[in-house]
């Protein structure tokens, strides 16, 4: 990812994950020059700056959607200026469909100045990709420029031919020094480029290069301490819960020695009482963990309802993981282990001693 100088993490967060704000703009001329570099295999331009109802409008080329293996659910790809193809989540939440029009707002969050003079037309809707693409509105780079051109709308624009056109945005002259984009997504031609190219960009140009995987890994290493602490805390909680279940079962057993003896006197076999105490432990832990999982999802649901950013970040309260199944299996085992000693006590109940001692 190549963009204006600044924080590499910000560059990645903004242009790959679409959460942070841009580091600034880069000149299309500079980006063009880089796109033609011999170590570059593909280059995809990104132009950010506008949004509609908090969903970002990204000026780019169809190759960007191909990166995410996006397919059309309905309508068509964007072809001309002011045409957009929208992600599945955008279509769902804003209830937009092919043929609808909307006016974008300046900036990447709500409350920006609305560009009412240049409405966008929805040409198509994408199938869900379960990536950030679901939350994006894709259009041409030129659409972004058009929205922001206030002064020379009437001025004749020089149309370039195939030899003079920009590599990245063929609709403008390669020599047009007024045009800017936000960033450039680059695929290396070979592994050597992975070493040479970032060094070249960072030292020889006024742009910076950042690796998405490296920056993401760096982000997690920064947050890692917090995540590890949370995980550790969770384990402590699980341990304490297990201990308190055990203590509760053990204590209740002391109180119920008499009950168990009476059950024996009524003809219950030892096996029946062991089964009953085991069932009690498993029942408690199983329902406990099911309730816990339900509560967890409920809290996440409220979280997604209250904090709109979590929706665009792709957090879904109805996503269930296989690990939650392990949690249930684990709780059954825990119940069995915790009721092991109570079961043993139930097995060894001396009816006479308990009943006579009372």
């Amino acid at each position, binding site marked *: 990812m190549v963009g204006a100088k600044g924080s590499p993490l910000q560059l990645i967060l903004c242009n790959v994950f679409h959460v942070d704000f841009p580091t600034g703009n880069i000149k299309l001329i500079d980006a063009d020059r880089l796109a033609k570099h011999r170590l570059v295999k593909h280059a995809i331009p990104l132009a950010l700056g506008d949004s509609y109802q908090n969903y970002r409008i990204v000026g780019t080329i169809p190759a960007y959607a191909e990166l995410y293996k996006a397919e059309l659910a309905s309508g068509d790809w964007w072809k001309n200026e002011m045409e957009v193809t929208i992600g599945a989540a955008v279509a769902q939440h804003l209830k937009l469909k092919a043929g609808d029009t909307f006016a974008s707002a300046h900036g990447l969050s709500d409350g920006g100045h609305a560009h009412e003079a240049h409405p966008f037309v929805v040409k198509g809707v994408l199938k869900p990709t379960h990536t950030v693409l679901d939350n994006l509105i894709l259009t041409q780079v030129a659409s972004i420029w058009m929205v922001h051109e206030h002064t020379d709308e009437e001025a004749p624009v020089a149309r370039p031919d195939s030899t003079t056109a920009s590599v990245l945005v063929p609709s403008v002259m390669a020599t047009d020094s007024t045009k800017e984009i936000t960033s450039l997504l680059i695929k290396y031609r070979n592994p050597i480029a992975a070493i040479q190219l970032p060094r070249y960009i960072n030292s020889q140009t006024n742009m910076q290069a950042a690796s998405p995987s490296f920056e993401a890994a760096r982000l997690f290493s920064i947050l890692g301490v917090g995540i590890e602490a949370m995980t550790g805390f969770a384990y402590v909680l699980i341990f304490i819960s297990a201990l308190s279940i055990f203590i509760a079962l053990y204590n209740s057993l002391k109180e119920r020695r*008499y*009950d168990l003896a*009476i*059950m*024996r*006197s*009524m*003809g*219950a*076999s*030892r*096996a*029946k009482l062991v089964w009953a105490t085991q069932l009690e432990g498993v029942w408690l832990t199983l329902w406990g963990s099911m309730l816990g999982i339900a509560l967890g999802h409920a809290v996440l649901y409220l979280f997604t309802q209250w904090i709109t950013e979590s929706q665009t970040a792709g957090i879904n309260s109805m996503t269930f993981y296989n690990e939650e199944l392990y949690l249930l299996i684990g709780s059954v085992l825990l119940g069995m282990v915790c009721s092991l000693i109570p079961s043993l006590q139930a097995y060894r109940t001396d*009816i*006479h001693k308990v*009943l*006579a001692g*009372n």
Partner: protein
Amino acid sequence: MITTKSVSYTYPSASEIVFPDLSIPAAGQFLLLGESGSGKTTLLHLLGGLLKLQRGTIDVNGTALSGLNESQLDRFRGRNYGFIFQRNHLLAALSVEQNLLMAPYLAGLKQDHHRVDEVLTQLGMADQKKKRIRELSLGQAQRVAIARAVLNKPSVIIADEPTSALDDKNCSRVAALLTSVAEQNRATLIIATHDHRLKDTIKNVIQL
């Protein structure tokens, strides 16, 4: 019909308790009287198969208790005995009906709802069937305990100090209930007690 022959029991570091030979006819009603420590509860538990026999023989309806292993004894108890203890120990979370159905469940017998109605009617508790145990008075709870003891139609009902915590009025009422319920179910009734008030109701006495 219960017959015992030269039964004695020795607790660790205590002297041997020798019990008289007994012959209790079917549907007979007996009081087991004696001071504390005379071995009332020991004999009762031996008769009820709750305590393992050390010496002598006990024969209940033709079955020698010493010949049964632990699980056979469990089954035998469930089908032949009904026990009533000083504290009734019903399951507070369950209803009267559910408590009564525990008896056939634990004994491994079929749960018979008509039998529940029948026994509750005998004890004048038919309208309390759906009530929770904690909603009952102490006297009502004791009736439920008696109902539970007779539900499986046992041939022997064994009661250990069922009246010691009751005042005179309730004592005679419980005694009357026990004898009538034992009669209605044609069961042998053995009550261990140091409560001499019961002698008015039950004339047969085994003195330890």
